[in-house]
């Protein structure tokens, strides 16, 4: 275990973050006053089953926070509790420093939870006007929100005629009404085509650039990897990890395939000072791996060649968020 990083070695993917349950610790990273959303041992039981089991997390002002987890992990239930739609069984939460679901907190929060909920017989514009009226907003805000999600041209069509992606974009438009400080978006890219996803990614970047905080739940880990500053990973109702995406992905790995391996290890060590470990790849072949940070790769290759080792491949491996996520969820199971 690398205590400095808080990682454990597990499986063939190498390093994965240690499964740190933050339930007992609370959202203690950073300044608590800087948290726009925080929960402390938040729990929701349905009958005897814990849908959310003691989650403590903190979303900092101005960041894009990815909320990850497999289906049924408790993400949406947690988000519902943050919006006051569902009452927690125990634990506490605050949004903007206020109780979740309080009118003041909700007026400063835009949200899209588990798909958009609109009146099918109304047009997109009329639906947004209804929502805007609840917030005391007007036509200007509606037009601006529609424009931001690129739905202006279809705004007068009835909601029931929209494609899944258009419905989703209208849901995001409703969340943007009045430029709230905090956006809680549950799977906002559901049903979007690749262009729509890219557009959504740009929108999230823009929102972040404007200083808005985004709490984003998504299954699309590539999206999260590109968009989010920090992530929280929920598995079976518990927060398994909370930290930056870079920390979660871990160090880049230097991977060497060469024979004989003992001479290869010595050659790399002599040329770069880097220590390599013997591991096996998925096909059972021996691979030498080590931390790639700070390693002079050309020097390592020169050393291997000078030692007369047969070099099959030298590569730097970066693990995707998806690799880490799958490893984490499998490890928990």
């Amino acid at each position, binding site marked *: 275990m690398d205590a400095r990083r808080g990682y454990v070695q597990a499986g063939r993917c190498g390093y994965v973050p240690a499964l740190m349950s933050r339930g007992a610790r609370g959202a203690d990273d950073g300044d608590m006053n800087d948290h726009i959303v925080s929960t402390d041992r938040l729990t929701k039981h349905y009958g005897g089953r814990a849908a959310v089991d003691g989650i403590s997390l903190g979303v900092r002002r101005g960041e894009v926070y990815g909320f990850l987890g497999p289906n049924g992990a408790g993400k949406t239930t947690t988000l519902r509790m943050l919006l006051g739609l569902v009452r927690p069984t125990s634990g506490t939460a605050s949004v903007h420093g206020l109780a979740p679901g309080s009118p003041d*907190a909700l007026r400063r929060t835009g949200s899209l939870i588990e*798909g958009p909920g*609109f009146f099918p017989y109304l047009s997109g514009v009329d639906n947004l006007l209804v929502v805007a009226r609840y917030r005391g907003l007007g036509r200007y805000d509606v037009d601006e929100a529609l424009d931001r999600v690129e739905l202006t041209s279809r705004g007068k069509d009835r909601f029931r005629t929209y494609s899944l992606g258009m419905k989703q974009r209208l849901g995001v438009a409703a969340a943007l009404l009045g430029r709230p400080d905090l956006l809680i978006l549950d799977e906002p890219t559901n049903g979007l085509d690749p262009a729509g996803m890219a557009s959504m990614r740009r929108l999230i970047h823009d929102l972040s650039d404007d200083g808005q905080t985004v709490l984003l739940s998504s299954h699309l880990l590539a999206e999260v990897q590109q968009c989010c500053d920090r992530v929280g990973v929920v598995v079976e109702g518990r927060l398994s990890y909370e930290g930056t995406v870079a920390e979660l992905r871990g160090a880049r790995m230097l991977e060497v395939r060469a024979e004989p391996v003992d001479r290869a290890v010595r050659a790399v060590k002599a040329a770069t000072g880097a220590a390599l470990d013997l591991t096996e790849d998925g096909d059972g072949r021996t691979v030498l791996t080590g931390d790639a940070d700070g390693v002079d790769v050309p020097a390592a290759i020169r050393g291997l060649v000078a030692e007369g080792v047969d070099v099959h491949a030298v590569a730097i491996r970066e693990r995707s968020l998806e690799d880490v996520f799958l490893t984490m969820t499998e490890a928990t199971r």
Partner: protein
Amino acid sequence: MNALAHSARAELRRLLRWPATWVLGGVWLTLQLLFAFAFPYIAYATGDPDAFQGGPMDQLLASMLPQSLPETLIAGTPMFGGAIVMIFAALTVGSAYNWGTWKTVLTQGPGRGAATGGLVAAVGVCVAGLVAVSTAFTYGLSLLVAAVESQDIVAPAWGDFFASVGGSALILGMWAAAGLFLGALTRGPALSVGLGLLWTFAVENLLRGAAALIDGFDVVTDYLPGSGAGSLAGSLTAAGGGDGTPGVLDVLTGTQASVLLGVYVAVFLALTFTLVKRRDVA
């Protein structure tokens, strides 16, 4: 107060653009046209009073003239008027659960009390509008009958007229409150409408049948919602509920019926608020 006003405006906007609002309003006016004018007039014109409740011909004509407006207006409210309004209110709340719009509304920050209050106010405005349109429609038809039959136009007694309008609003308001409660209870449109119609057209009548068999059971059946609505209508018609008009009864006095309906409105609305405020929104 601001949140309540915003909620009411938002709900009214969506209800007035909802086809169901206009379809149900149209059904109400069509039924008024058919049962209060078309069928009686056909019976009158063909000289076959037996075709419509067997009343004397001059009485049949008089029931369609302007001076009978108070009775004509309220006679249809306990049965089909109440059912139509109950369907409308149940659909209003139940469909909002079905479409997921409660979630959208409640996350805008009006507060559950204000959101529910706004919805109740918007439904109340629609019911008041329906009574107003129905009054104008009924009066217009009675003027037409008077003109066609060359009858003198005699305005109804104002006291009777206002009592009828107020009574109609109270009866429809009670059924609307019942519909709101059923929609909130079942969290869906189909079950709420089904249960409401079952109660309106079947259960109350069956209970009244049971009351005829069981001594003392009429203490219960006399105070059911339909009994109150029917009795209020009966108290405002000349026949006093004894002419066989469906749903019009004479088991309670007008005052008793009004108080009973007021209590039902309060109870149904209190239950609706409680259900919306207390339960999780999926």
